[in-house]
């Protein structure tokens, strides 16, 4: 992989802003009662999504979790179609069938998001198996939280992926919480990367709020995968600045803890880096403004988009035309 140019880095800076502002927009829509269900925001975790997805092509596939907006956008899915899906509109990515926790954008390699914690991991391994079996070079990426390591499916999948040497990158966003329960309370394993050792899976724990670190480590990991040296477990230490879902009163953590992490905001941090590298504050402001406009436009259009037609509710239960409209 060629070293990114300053322009590439600026694109990534913009990508992070798009996610941040997108989530802010979802938050506003949700507060206004316009988002069905309970959206989980990725605010504060943008560097992981952007740093990993910067290395992926459309042929590479991605499976995310309940907290997946950022990953999908970083992979390149359309802002408006993604937002429209979260609003439950007909021109959303899944025609309003999936919603916030179930974004799929097949053409862009976003193959799924599961609301069941850890449910995506084996799917990602399966996609990697298909690539391996068919001799394709693309890889598969699974994003998941630290809470998912409590689930048996995580461990079953590690074993399989190691045994079959699957080109799958497991990216854990260790944000220290599973809902309202802190990491210490749901596991006495501090670092998710420790689970790789028994399987001799390559692994690393990095600062997930440092875009440079994420980018570099993902490059390394993905390079191994593309050379059949998979799988890889990348643990990104991060923090969600938002509640578990929109509306979470966050009584389980202190104002001080939150404040301390606000200072480690990945966007601010990368901004300081770019300034150090000589990018003008104005230029960065302009990038942020551009992202704001993009999100604004997507929001306006998504909100104006038509709702699904109730008469289509029984469509697409099966692929086979012969099974269309069966009642059981």
């Amino acid at each position, binding site marked *: 992989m060629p070293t990114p140019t300053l322009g590439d880095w600026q694109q990534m800076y913009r990508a992070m802003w798009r996610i941040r502002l997108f989530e802010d927009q979802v938050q506003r829509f949700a507060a206004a009662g316009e988002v069905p269900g309970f959206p989980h925001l990725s605010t504060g975790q943008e560097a992981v999504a952007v740093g990993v997805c910067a290395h992926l092509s459309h042929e590479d596939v991605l499976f995310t979790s309940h907290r997946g907006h950022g990953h999908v956008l970083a992979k390149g899915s359309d802002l408006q179609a993604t937002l429209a899906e979260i609003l439950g509109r007909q021109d959303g990515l899944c025609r309003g069938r999936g919603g916030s926790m179930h974004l799929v954008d097949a053409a862009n390699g976003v193959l799924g998001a599961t*609301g069941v914690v850890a449910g995506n991991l084996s799917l990602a391994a399966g996609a990697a198996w298909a690539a391996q079996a068919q001799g394709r070079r693309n890889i598969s990426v699974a994003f998941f939280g630290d809470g998912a390591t409590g689930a048996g499916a995580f461990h079953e999948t590690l074993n399989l992926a190691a045994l079959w040497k699957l080109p799958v990158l497991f990216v854990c966003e260790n944000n220290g919480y599973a809902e309202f*329960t802190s990491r210490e309370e749901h596991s006495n394993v501090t670092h998710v990367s420790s689970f790789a050792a028994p399987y001799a899976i390559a692994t690393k724990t990095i600062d997930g709020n440092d875009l440079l670190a994420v980018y570099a480590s993902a490059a390394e990991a993905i390079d191994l995968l593309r050379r059949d040296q998979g799988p890889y477990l990348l643990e990104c230490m991060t923090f969600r600045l938002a509640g578990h879902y929109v509306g979470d009163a966050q009584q389980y953590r202190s104002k001080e803890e939150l404040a301390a992490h606000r200072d480690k905001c990945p966007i601010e941090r990368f901004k300081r880096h770019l300034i150090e590298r000589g990018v003008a504050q104005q230029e960065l402001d302009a990038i942020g403004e551009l992202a704001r406009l993009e999100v604004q436009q997507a929001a306006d259009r998504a909100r104006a988009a038509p709702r699904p037609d109730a008469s289509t509710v029984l469509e697409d239960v099966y692929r086979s035309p012969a099974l269309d409209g069966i009642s059981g």
Partner: protein
Amino acid sequence: MIHSFIDILRRALDEEMTRDAAVHLLGEDVAAGGAFGVTRGLAQKHGVTRVRNTPISEAAITGLATGAALCGLKPVLEIMFIDFATLAMDCLVNQTAKYRYMSGGQLAVPLVVRTQAGAAGGAAAQHSQSLEAWFIHVPGLVVIAPASPVEAYGLLKSAIRLGDPVLFIEHKRLYTMKEDLADDIELPPIGRARIVRGGTDVTLIAYSGMVQSALEAVQTLADVGISAEIIDLRTLLPLDMATIAASVSKTHRVLIAHEAVLNGGFGAEIAARIGSELFDELDTPVVRVGCPFAPIPFAPDLERALLPGAQDIVRAVRLMPGLGE
């Protein structure tokens, strides 16, 4: 005193914990109050060793609760959404339900698994299912699905005291429903349905969230001169056929309503039994109202279109020969 469904569940748990030191709660986030606040304050009151947070390990925590139940505890396990009970089916079905039988009567599993089901507000396909039909197919389990706060209060307490494994299904749409709880309520027996409202022309059989829909429907039906009797099953396994038989022998018409997918839903079993045991009592075919054959879609417009409700009951009753327009 007026209680919401959530508050009344908490009260029942609190009282049973106070009454019996063997009762322990466990589940994801329960010490923090649980995803819906049902267990709020209980860890503070009864201690974190009796109200235990667990990792996201539905399979193992169900096994843990089962093993503990074999050894003197009376665990109340919370599975946050019934959709995640899919992860605990081996234990629930192969171990928990069969322990007493397979051990030739040596052991028993006094366990209550509380879980939350049903669709509301765009929770989408993986957080909205009604899967009770799976569990009534499993000998050794008891399945309860209360339709109101007061019912939930009594049934939960009865379940905790039963001594056999109970799946206790709470409907998310009922959580905010409020009712007055009398001071000296008698605990309802497991396995007995209740007549929610008397009527003479048609029997509406429902449970959980659909009892509310039936109540709504009854108003509309009354306006057109149809008198409907509502049975709230309360316990799905075992099924109270006696109460059903008494009602059907009077009305000679039956509609069964549940939110679950119609095909293979619990309504099929009820309809089959009525068709067999009360064949001669039926003036018209048994009608089932339930979810058409699709996953629960995310968009509210679609969700609404798919879910069965009061209008579906009204429409179906009015199509019954002899009651029609």
